[in-house]
C-alpha cells in the first residue's frame, strides 16, 4: 500500500484556484480547434454567405448599370446620337432575326424606325433589362425631339430633368443585400451549428463523458457557446470586409455596433438550433429541420427582397421572424449610419425572442439523451 501512496504524490493532482477558468480555456481551445478543422463549418458560415452575395449582387445589380444592348433593324436614325455608356448597338437584317436575339437573351430591346415612328420591342426574356432599355430609348427619343423643337422655337422655355440618387447612392443593391445576407448567414450558422452539435453529442456521448470530469456542464456549455459567438464575430468581420472591398458596400461610422447585434442574434438562433437538435435524432434530420425553419424565416424577413415590395401577408409574417429584426437593425446601423438608439425596438424584439426560445429549449430538452 505504501508504494501506491508514493506513486500518488509523485503525479500530484493538487488543483490550484481558478480551475474553472482553466477548464473553460482548455474546452474553448479543444472546441475551437475542432471548429476550424471542420471544413463544412467554414463553408456554411463563411463561404456560403459570400457566394450568396456574389450571386444576388449580380442578379439585382447588373441590369441598371450596364449599357442596354439594342438591336437596330435596318436604319435607325435616332440611335446616331446615342451615348455609348447607355447603349451598345448591333444591327439585324430583319425583325425576325432581331426578335430571335431577344428570345435568346442576346439583346435587351429591338428598335425599328419607320419614318417618324420609333417602334420598340423590349425583351420578354429578361423583362427588367427590357424595361430599362425601353425607358432609355424613350428618353433618347424625347431628347432628340427636344433638340429639334428648341432649334425651331428657341424662345420657348422647356423643362429639363436632372436625376440625383436618393441617400447619396446608398440604395445600390449591395446596400440592402449585404445586411440581409449577413443576417441570414448568422442565422444558418447558429441554427445548423447548434442543431448539428446536439445531434453529435447524442451520438458520440461526449457530453456524458465530460459530465464525469471535474469540469461542470455549465463550463462546457459556456465554452461551446463562446466558440459560436467568436465565430459569429469573425463571420461578420469577414463578410463586411469583403462586401466593402469587393462590392462597394459603404460602411457607416456605427458599423462596429453590428457586433453586439450579431451576438444577440446568435443567441436567438442557437436557441432555435437547440430545440431542433432536441427533436432530431440524426444529422440529416437535424439539417432538414434546420432548413425547414431557416428557409421560411429568411423568405419572410426582407433579407433578400425589400419587405415594402412584398405582399401584405409576407409583411405580416415577417414580424414573427427574428431575422427581420436583425436585418433591419444591421441595415439601420451599418448602411444608414443610425445610432444604436434608433434600433432599440429591434434589439428588444430580438432579445425577447431569444429569451422565449431559450425557455422553450430548456423546458423541452431531454438531458438524459445526451
Amino acid at each position, binding site marked *: 500500500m505504501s508504494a501506491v501512496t508514493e506513486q500518488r504524490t509523485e503525479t500530484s493532482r493538487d488543483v490550484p484556484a481558478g480551475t474553472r477558468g482553466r477548464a473553460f480555456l482548455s474546452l474553448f481551445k479543444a472546441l475551437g480547434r475542432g471548429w476550424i478543422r471542420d471544413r463544412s463549418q467554414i463553408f456554411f458560415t463563411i463561404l456560403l454567405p459570400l457566394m450568396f452575395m456574389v450571386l444576388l449582387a449580380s442578379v439585382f445589380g447588373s441590369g441598371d448599370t450596364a449599357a442596354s444592348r439594342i438591336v437596330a433593324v435596318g436604319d435607325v436614325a435616332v440611335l446616331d446620337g446615342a451615348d455609348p455608356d447607355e447603349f451598345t448597338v448591333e444591327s439585324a437584317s430583319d425583325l425576325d432575326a432581331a426578335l430571335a436575339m431577344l428570345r435568346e437573351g442576346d439583346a435587351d430591346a429591338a428598335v425599328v424606325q419607320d419614318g417618324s415612328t420609333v417602334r420598340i420591342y423590349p425583351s420578354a426574356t429578361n423583362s427588367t433589362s427590357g424595361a430599362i432599355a425601353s425607358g432609355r430609348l424613350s428618353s433618347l427619343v424625347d431628347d432628340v425631339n427636344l433638340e429639334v423643337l428648341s432649334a425651331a422655337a428657341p424662345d420657348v422655355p422647356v423643362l429639363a430633368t436632372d436625376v440625383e440618387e436618393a441617400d447619396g447612392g446608398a440604395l445600390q443593391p449591395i446596400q440592402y443585400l449585404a445586411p440581409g445576407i449577413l443576417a441570414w448567414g448568422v442565422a444558418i450558422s447558429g441554427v445548423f451549428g447548434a442543431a448539428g452539435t446536439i445531434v453529435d453529442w447524442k451520438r458520440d456521448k461526449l457530453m456524458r463523458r465530460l459530465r464525469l470530469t*471535474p469540469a461542470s456542464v455549465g463550463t462546457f456549455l459556456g465554452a461551446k457557446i463562446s466558440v459560436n459567438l467568436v465565430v459569429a464575430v469573425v463571420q461578420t468581420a469577414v463578410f463586411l470586409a469583403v462586401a466593402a472591398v469587393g462590392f462597394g458596400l459603404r460602411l457607416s461610422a456605427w458599423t462596429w455596433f453590428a457586433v453586439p447585434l450579431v451576438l444577440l442574434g446568435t443567441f436567438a438562433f442557437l436557441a432555435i438550433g437547440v430545440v431542433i437538435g432536441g427533436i432530431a435524432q440524426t444529422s440529416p434530420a437535424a439539417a432538414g429541420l434546420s432548413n425547414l425553419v431557416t428557409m421560411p424565416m429568411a423568405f419572410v424577413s426582407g433579407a433578400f427582397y425589400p419587405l415594402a415590395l412584398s405582399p401584405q401577408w409576407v409583411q405580416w409574417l415577417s414580424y414573427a421572424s427574428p431575422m427581420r429584426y436583425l436585418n433591419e437593425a444591421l441595415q439601420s446601423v451599418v448602411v444608414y449610419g443610425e445610432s444604436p438608439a434608433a434600433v432599440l425596438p429591434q434589439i428588444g424584439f430580438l432579445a425577447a425572442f431569444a429569451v422565449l426560445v431559450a425557455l422553450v429549449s430548456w423546458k423541452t430538452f431531454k438531458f438524459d439523451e445526451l
Partner: protein
Amino acid sequence: MDAAIEVADLRKTYRGRRTGEVRAVDGVSFRVERGEFFGILGPNGAGKTTTLEIVEGLRKPDSGDVRLLGRSPWPHSPELTRRLGVQLQASAFFEFLTVAEQIGTFAELYGAAKARAAEMLDLVGLAEHANMRCEKLSGGQQQRLSIACALVGDPELVFLDEPTAALDPQARRNLWDLMRAINDEGRTVVLTTHYMEEAEALCDRVAIMDAGRIKAVDSPAGFVRKLDAPTRVTVAAGQLDDARIAELALDGTASTADGTVVFETRDPRKLLTALASDGALEGLAVRTANLEDVFLHVTGREWRG
C-alpha cells in the same frame, strides 16, 4: 475507511413510447472494497450499463442509494469526479482533434500535468500515434485511448464499460494486461463484460447480472467451487470396450455419443491416470466447470453472451 462503492436497492425503469416499460435495473445492491477488481458479468441487455451509469452519477435511479468513496455521486462535485476515471461503453472524443490533443484536453480538465498525458499514451501503446486524428484510430486503439483518458487524472476508482467488446482476441489479451496493471497500482477497478473468460481472468469478485438483477456475487473460483460440478473428460470412442468404460465410470457417469466417450467425474486425476495406463488418450479433452456452468446454474438458463 469507506468502501469504494456501496449500492443499495437500485431501481430504474425506462419508459419508451415504442418499447413500453423496461425494468433495466430491478433492485440491485452490491459493495466494492478499495483496491478490488470487481466485475459485472451479464449478457447484452442485462442492465450493466444502466447500473454503471447510475453509480457514476450519469443517471438518476427511480429509487435506491449510491455511495461512491463515501459520498453521493449526485449532484456533480469536482472533488469526487477528480478521483474517478471513466471509460464509457461508446468512446467519446472531441471531434477533429489528434490523439495528443485529446488526452491533453482531458489532462487539463483533471488538472494533471502534461507529462502525465504523454506517460498514459505510452502506457496504452499509443505514443507513436500521438499526432493522428482520433477518428482514424482502429476500434481497439480508440478503446485504449479512452482508457488512457480515464487514467490521466490518476483516479482511485476506475469504471470500464465493456472495454474489450468488438476487439480481436490479441487486442483483447493486450487490454487484459493493461487492466491488470491498473489494478496492481492500487486502483479500484469496476469492469462490465459479457465475456466469461474475461471476468474469470481479471476479477477478484464477479456479480452475475441478468434481467436487471444481480443473481449472485462471488470470486470466480468460489463460484466454481460452490457449484461443485464434475469434471468432464472426453476421449475418442473405440479405444475402450464397454466393460472398461463402465468400470472407469464407477465414481461418476459415462456416455457415448458422436464417436466420443464422455466421463463426468469428481476425481479427474484417478480417471486420467487410468486412461493413460490404458493408452486411451486419443482425442482427449478435459473441461472443468467454469462461469458458463455457474451462469446456467444461477440464472436457470443457458449462457448466450
